[in-house]
């Protein structure tokens, strides 16, 4: 598609779905990813972008007994991460710690800090509060929302509270509001639901079918971006849940995942099953809206295309996507065939 091959590649052995930015690592730009193979031994890879930014180095390789469906790095301790895994029939979730001396060991084992064992159904994800140190964790399965208290030193996690969604709404994922420690959004088949963690009550909902993924805007309060199977990407102001603030066309097939840049306002990345990653510029704040409207009024024919670039150099559907929080112009994407590609969006920022 547009542009040549510019990203830095890294191959995983098996198919994989999830990649996460290691936010707590302030010295390096690193990502953590895990494979999804039903019948083979799965692996967790800790990848670091070399200081020159020209290659990806495997910083750690750890075996993981089950296929990994979700993986999230702890935002305040670079050695801790969570996985959701499955052996094909049942699901589990656990918090892991990378062993301290892993560089010297031949086959280092991950240290399991805690198992989030209360789940019965299909676990969809484990959430860390994205904005800093917080001793709580959220895990979401088909029917329930769990709030855990994690004590790393004691290596224990305890259920603090639990709330069941109604039977008809199978939860498929969620996002923790970086601006509000007590607000969580969960996605299900027909809506996005908002929860207050203090009361574990539903506070609000956006009625919208087939939402795959939701992501809070790190910069702007109240802004939530959702990805939907057929109808693309929507940007919502959660105070006005009836009508989206903005609509982006999304992908040719399903839009699988969407993520807002932690630093640049309105910069959104989406990945889809059409094997592309799209970079969007869609400022959602009211002020920008006004200016853009004025611009449109001035030149109706020259409406700016929100799509900045489409990265098409993938062989299979892209399910994993993560911005680096250390170098916010860098993102990592992971296609199903196990290829990690790290790209820089700098050329598109300067154009602005």
């Amino acid at each position, binding site marked *: 598609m547009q542009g040549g091959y510019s990203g830095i590649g890294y191959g995983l052995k098996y198919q994989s779905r999830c990649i996460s930015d290691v936010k707590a690592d302030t010295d390096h730009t690193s990502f953590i990813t895990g494979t999804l193979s039903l019948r083979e031994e799965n692996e967790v890879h800790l990848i670091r972008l070399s200081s020159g930014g020209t290659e990806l180095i495997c910083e750690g390789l750890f075996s993981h007994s089950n296929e990994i469906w979700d993986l999230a790095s702890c935002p305040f301790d670079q050695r801790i991460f969570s996985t959701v895994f499955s052996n094909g029939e049942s699901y589990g979730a656990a918090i892991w710690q990378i062993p301290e001396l892993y560089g010297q060991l031949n086959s280092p084992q991950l240290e399991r800090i805690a198992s989030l064992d209360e789940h019965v159904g299909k676990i969809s994800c484990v959430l860390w509060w994205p904005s800093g140190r917080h001793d709580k964790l959220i895990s979401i399965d088909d029917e329930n929302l769990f709030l855990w208290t994690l004590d790393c030193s004691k290596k224990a996690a305890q259920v603090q509270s639990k709330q069941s969604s109604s039977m008809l709404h199978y939860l498929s994922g969620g996002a923790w509001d970086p601006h509000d420690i007590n607000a969580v959004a969960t996605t299900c088949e027909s809506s996005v639901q908002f929860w207050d963690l203090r009361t574990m009550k539903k506070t609000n909902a956006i009625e919208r079918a087939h939402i795959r993924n939701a992501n809070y805007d790190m910069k702007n309060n109240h802004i939530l971006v959702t990805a939907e*199977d057929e109808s693309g990407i929507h940007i919502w102001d959660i105070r006005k849940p009836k009508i989206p603030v903005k609509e982006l066309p999304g992908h040719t097939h399903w839009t699988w995942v969407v993520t807002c840049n932690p630093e640049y306002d309105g910069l959104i990345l989406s990945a889809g099953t059409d094997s592309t990653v799209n970079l969007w510029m869609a400022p959602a704040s009211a002020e920008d809206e006004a200016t853009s409207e004025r611009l449109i009024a001035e030149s109706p024919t020259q409406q700016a295309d929100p799509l900045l670039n489409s990265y098409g150099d993938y062989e299979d559907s892209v399910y994993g996507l993560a911005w680096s929080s250390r170098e916010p112009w860098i993102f990592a994407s992971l296609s199903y065939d196990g290829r990690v590609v790290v790209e820089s969006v700098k050329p598109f920022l300067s154009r602005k």
Partner: protein
Amino acid sequence: MVEREKTRNDDVPLDDKAKRMRDLLSSFYNPDHSSAPKPPSDYENLDAINSTSFDPDHYMNVLVQKSNLEGLLRRHVEMAAEIKNLDTDLQMLVYENYNKFISATDAIKWMKSNIVGMQANMEQLLDKIMSVQSRSDGVNTSLFEKREHIEKLHRTRNLLRKVQFIYDLPARLSKCIKSEAYADAVKFYTGAMPIFKAYGDSSFQDCKRASEEAIVIIVKNLQAKLFSDSESIQARAEAAVLLKQLDFPVDSLQAKLLEKLEQSLGDLQLKTVRIENILLESNDPSKQGKAFESIPSTGHEVSVHGFAEAIRAYRVIFPDSESQLIKLAQNLVIKHFEMIEQCVKSRISSANFLGALRTIWTDVLLMDEVLSEAALPDFSLEAGQVTVKKYVASTFTYLLQDISDALLKVKVSPNEAAEEHALKLALEASKKAVLQGSMDLLLDFRQLLDDDLGLLVKLREFIVDWVQEGFQDFFRALDDRFLLLSGRKNPSSQDQVLSEGALGEKVLVGIALVLAQLSVFIEQTATPRISEEIAASFSGGGARDYENGHAFASGEICQIFRSSAEKLLHHYINMRTQRVSTLLRKRFTTPNWVKHKEPREVHMFVDLFVQELRAVQSEVKQILPVGLMRKHHRSDSNGSTNSSRSNALLDDRMSRSNTQKGRSQLLETHLAKLFKQKVEIFTKVEYTQESVETTIVKLCLKSLQEFVRLKTFNRSGFQQIQLDVQFLRTISRENIEVEDAIDFYLTRYELRSFHVIVAASERCFDPVPLEPPILDKLVQVKLARSKEQSK
């Protein structure tokens, strides 16, 4: 210096002397020397000799310094002569003065002797005058008495004459009435008025009564005259003036007459209404023109003529009534235009509209003749501008309505048989509505432009602008309407009813496709033709700047429709694939795939899947053209043979490689990669049957693949998927109608379904495929059953 002296002497030898004389005399009689002009500086040393400020020493110095000896000598001679001359002059003067003094003394002496004796004469004269005066006084007193008497007699005679006139007045008035000399009568009566006022109650009572009676008759006659239309205007005007002189309340008369005029105006309007009605009834296009030619020339025009005449008369009669008349006339025009606007509201052909305008304009011109002060043409121009604009706007609205009606007719025929062609019909109808409607519209507007009616000629530029602007806005509105109808856009409040209640789900999906194709049609055919037409007959304009509206810009319209066509097509594809997705989601969430039982038959969701695809096929066939894209869509030209071979390979390999799971998975992945080669699912969709259908099928199969990837299967689950997909493949093969299309269909189904099976095997603990004979058998059973059902 010498030269200067010389020239001076040569030039003014005579003048010099005379001048000096004069100067001397003036200095003698006028001692004020200060006022004398100062000699120029150059001659100071020479001329200063005559001034009071003459300094002899200085003069000598200067002279001695500046002149040579010869000059000095000559100067000396000159001066001596001058002095001599001056002496002579002085002597002459003295002598003359003395002479004059002597003669004056003589005259005084003579006067003194003559004045004696005058006193006596004067006294004599006074005596005589006194006596004359006393005589004249005497005459005066003796005549005074007689003169007084004469004067008295004269007064009495005058009085008697007046009395006589008043006694004669009734008779005279009646005589006047008889001879209809009302003017004289009024003159007489007004003349007698002061007397009646003074003495009417006493001595001339009878007389007054009689003449008043006569005057009443006169007033009556005059009124009758005023109101009778048969009298000449001059006579009526005179009557009005006379009435006014008689102190008759003319204002009420004026009001009455105005009322009458207004009444006739009302009648006129009523007549107009009738005309409009007739017009509306005669919507038969052949009669339209004629109806208009005939009717106004008879009834309407006559009555307007009458009205104009009346106004003319009225103006003459009451010259100061213009403002009222203007108001009246403007009212008439306003009413007229209101009428037309009413008609415009309920759809009216341009011939009728023109006719109505023409009627009004004739009326206006007629009235302008009699009442030019009202500036009726300008006034009606303004009103007409509004009306014509409204007409243009409403015409566009109706066109828009026509098009949406044509589109929405689809739902009117809900029975199955009709539905096969419903979309096609809708497309054809709406295409026709767009093109034919626009052309008719332009034709109508052409008529407006080509007409030589004064009103329209003046509005021509505006009309051109409005038409251009109208088309621009119309297409924008149309685009909006399309998006609304397709359900892509959230309906705004007023249109909600239209899109929600009226449209069934099924039709709605098809409509999106119809709209997409229609947009393409508008972009590629309609817009160029319309812009051609506009360029041909609606160029120019520019009577005002386009601050609010825009001139017709076909490029912009094309762009809008191109993009919305794309949007609509994608929307259609989206809606279709979404339905399949829902289907698939249900299929995949319900069973527990890890504990799936052995496949016994093809799952029924496949039926639904096929049904959906068939629906797409039928819709697409109705709307879109057949494309010539058998091969060029594939980037790898060897795709077809490879893919079929690969399937054979896969089947073959799978049956053999139960034990080599690890290797097989790798191989599968690589195989998949080999055939993916930038899978052309996500290429641009074209407006052809194949392209759209292929895209939808590809997207649906891709969705299937994605759903499979999210699940984990046991062997039986995998086999179920395999069976279902196999059935889909078989069905698709059967659907191939032309040999040419094999390649295309293979691309469409085989490759994608292959990916589905790969995905399923990847997500399976134990990917052992069904034995081909069993697979075949199950597929055949299903095929037979579905055939039976269709029978």
